[in-house]
């Protein structure tokens, strides 16, 4: 086994459970489901915004994971592989749903449009403590802004900033280069920032 595979095995908290399942203890599979059910459900809701599609996605993901777990070769952490399966299930669902159209976001569209749009004072929302800002309404504004993002940007920002994967992990999940992830992430964040600006400026 290569050094990378050995390292992946050492650092993966799910490995013992997976080894037990693959050694014949299929009854333990539900423990794996319990570990990730909530995070996958939330990932699905961020990506689909539709409980029915989300539930299908979560169930399909776990069924596929069960089916292919024996073939899991520790090339990446189990969690990264799980999200790769989930992303693929999301994309299948998406083709049947109505979503923000796919388009490229250009960095130029986030630059101030003219002199008057350049501000020298930090707006209040950007300096307040998070617990004073976060509420159901703001959560809804961010969720809507995520849904307005073209999917390839939404996937990256949800994996990086909402789910907490790092650049390398996100690249592995999506089969992209880290450089590509960084470009998409920056544009997605600028898009969300503009949505927040609009929300607070028109409040």
């Amino acid at each position: 086994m290569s050094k990378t595979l050995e390292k992946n095995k050492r650092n993966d908290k799910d490995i013992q459970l997976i080894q037990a399942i693959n050694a014949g203890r299929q009854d333990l599979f539900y423990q794996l489901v319990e570990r990730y059910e909530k995070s996958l459900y939330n990932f699905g809701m961020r990506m689909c915004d539709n409980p029915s599609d989300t539930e299908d996605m979560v169930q399909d993901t776990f069924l596929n994971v069960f089916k292919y777990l024996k073939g899991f070769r520790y090339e990446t952490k189990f969690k990264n592989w799980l999200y790769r399966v989930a992303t693929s299930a999301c994309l299948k669902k998406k083709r049947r749903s109505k979503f923000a159209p796919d388009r490229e976001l250009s960095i130029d569209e986030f630059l101030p449009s003219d002199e008057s749009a350049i501000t020298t004072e930090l707006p209040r929302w950007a300096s307040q403590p998070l617990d004073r800002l976060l509420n159901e309404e703001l959560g809804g504004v961010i969720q809507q802004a995520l849904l307005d993002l073209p999917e390839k940007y939404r996937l990256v920002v949800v994996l990086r900033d909402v789910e907490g994967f790092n650049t390398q992990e996100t690249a592995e999940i999506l089969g992209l280069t880290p450089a590509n992830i960084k470009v998409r992430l920056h544009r997605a964040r600028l898009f969300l920032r503009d949505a927040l600006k609009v929300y607070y400026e028109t409040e």
Partner: protein
Amino acid sequence: MKRSDSHQPHSNCLALFEKLSEYIDRELDAPTCKDIEAHIRDCKPCQVCMGTLKQTIELCKHLEHRSVPETFHRKLKDAISDLTEKHPG
């Protein structure tokens, strides 16, 4: 974000604007970070740009995670039980 004329933002500001996320994520090398910090110290608009982007990221990181609906939780549990009973190993 300073402007060197009425149409074009200052080139240092533009360079910073493109690297802001990588700077916030600590993914840049030390000399580039130093350059950014030196620029931002004197550039109010870039400070604002950095501040609003940082806060956007923090808000995303702290979004509330909702609970799985009980009906779905049970449905999933049943589906997994069916599956593992059919393939007991």
